[in-house]
């Protein structure tokens, strides 16, 4: 892999470079691999990268039915944070956040991770109490978190609606200074380039249409590009996890729903942080390009359509105007939908499945992007060692039978 650097850029600009190489190859699938990852989103690519990097498992393929990073990786609002309530969640998201902090250098690909603080607004006393509970827990888990007064919050976010005469005046909030945003496509591309350089085959336009088993063990996959043998397989397919699981003969506690987001036209900087509001229900940041990037609510019904309904976006628009009155005359440029895989306890599933040799990583709901490196790290470890990584263990499928759920609904009432 030829390293990226300013010098390289300069050499190429003045014609002294020898041209840029492909960021990743587009190989034909081999007949067999040690590990096949199904799903070429950020999580799948990160899993492949860490399998090769941390565990020396390099005979790995990532199968993607479309183009890599084309699912939720390329459709989210790029928020990265780790201030989750429960110990189990905090541990895995904080592990991920630490990886984010070195990811650009690790991958030699600028993923533009921008730690610009994240403020979760509180509009009611109940929200202040919830924030207090979460911040107290975060601190004891070694996560940077702060409780902010109304004055502090309004000073930090000057465009917030300062009126007390509104339905949900800002009472204060909680902040995580190390949280922020990243460039979502770059994460997929950076992991792809890194994994490819370590020998991983990234195979796009390759859809899995069947699972081949011998007894209780998985031995390979049927794909639109032929049969592929595999010693181990991991499904890392977010919204399509249930479809893959049904090919393998089991069901998941997952439902797929449309989740929408939208961006405004680019404007000069007005918002230098990430803002989330539960009661008013919006979350927003401003991209480096100048667009306001906003996440909307989830449609109630199951869907694989990658599009949601209009009232959800209208609600988001009114929430935005309510929170930031100056946005009213700005214009929304584009909206889109992703398919989120939602677990009953709003926590992911990472680990083994009823089929031997088959692993799964899904159920991240609205929160998967921030977990990308951490999730890849622990799943790679789980696959390589055939036992759950310590951070992944609480997120096994067994928790649904034992009842030991990790219910993040309260803390993730805004989600994301």
């Amino acid at each position, binding site marked *: 892999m030829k390293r990226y650097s300013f010098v390289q850029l300069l050499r190429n600009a003045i014609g002294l470079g020898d041209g840029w190489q492909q960021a990743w190859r587009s190989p034909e699938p081999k007949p067999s691999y040690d590990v096949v990852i199904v799903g070429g989103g950020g999580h799948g690519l990160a899993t492949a990268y860490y399998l090769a990097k941390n565990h020396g498992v390099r005979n790995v393929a990532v199968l993607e039915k479309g183009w890599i990073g084309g699912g939720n990786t390329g459709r989210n609002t790029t928020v990265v944070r780790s201030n989750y309530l429960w110990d189990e969640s905090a541990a895995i998201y904080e592990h991920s956040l630490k990886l984010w902090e070195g990811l650009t250098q690790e991958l030699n690909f600028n993923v533009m991770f921008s730690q610009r603080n994240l403020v979760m607004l509180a509009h009611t006393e109940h929200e202040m109490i919830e924030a207090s509970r979460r911040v107290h827990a975060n601190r004891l888990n070694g996560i940077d978190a702060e409780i902010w007064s109304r004055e502090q919050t309004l000073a930090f976010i000057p465009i917030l609606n300062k009126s007390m005469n509104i339905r949900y005046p800002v009472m204060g909030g909680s902040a995580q200074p190390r949280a922020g945003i990243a460039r979502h496509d770059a994460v997929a591309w950076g992991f792809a380039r890194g994994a490819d350089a370590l020998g991983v085959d990234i195979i796009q336009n390759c859809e899995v249409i069947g699972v081949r088993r011998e007894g209780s063990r998985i031995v390979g996959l049927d794909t639109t590009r032929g049969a592929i043998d595999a010693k181990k397989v991991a499904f890392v397919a977010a919204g399509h996890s249930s*479809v893959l699981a049904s090919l393998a003969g089991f069901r*998941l*506690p997952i439902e797929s729903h449309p989740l929408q987001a939208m961006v405004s036209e680019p404007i000069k900087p007005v918002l230098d942080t990430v803002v989330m509001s539960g009661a008013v229900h919006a979350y927003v940041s401003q991209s480096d390009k100048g667009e306001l990037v906003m996440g909307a609510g989830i449609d109630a*019904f*199951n*869907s694989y359509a990658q599009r949601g*309904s*209009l009232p959800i976006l209208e609600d988001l628009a009114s929430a935005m105007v309510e929170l930031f009155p100056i946005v009213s005359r700005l214009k929304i440029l584009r909206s889109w939908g992703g398919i989120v895989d939602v677990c*009953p306890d709003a926590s992911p599933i990472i680990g083994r499945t009823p089929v031997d040799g088959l692993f799964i990583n899904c159920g991240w709901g609205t929160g998967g992007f921030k977990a990308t490196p951490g999730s890849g790290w622990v799943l790679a470890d789980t696959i390589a060692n055939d036992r759950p990584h310590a951070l992944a263990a609480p997120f096994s499928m067994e928790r649904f*039978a034992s009842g030991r759920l990790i219910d993040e609904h309260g803390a993730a009432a805004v989600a994301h």
Partner: protein
Amino acid sequence: MLLIPCPYCGERTESEFRYGGEAHFRRPENHLEATDEAWADYLFMRKNPKGWHRERWMHIAGCKRWFYVVRHTVTHRISSVYKVGDPLPDLPS
């Protein structure tokens, strides 16, 4: 914004309804004696198909009745609606 044909009131816009998720999953027989796995299966496991889906809706802003809808989860097309107790219509092929 779906247009849902309530079997009692006729076509109404989605905002009048509450969604109830997958239909016709049953509590295990003698559920108090069911294994933890069987119980978890009932509580949490869902088909979540990419395709035709039998699902439950309630007309909360209308007749307040629960009923069933067969809807495609990719096109969102609704092929049929039926009442509780009605024979299950076939899924379109």
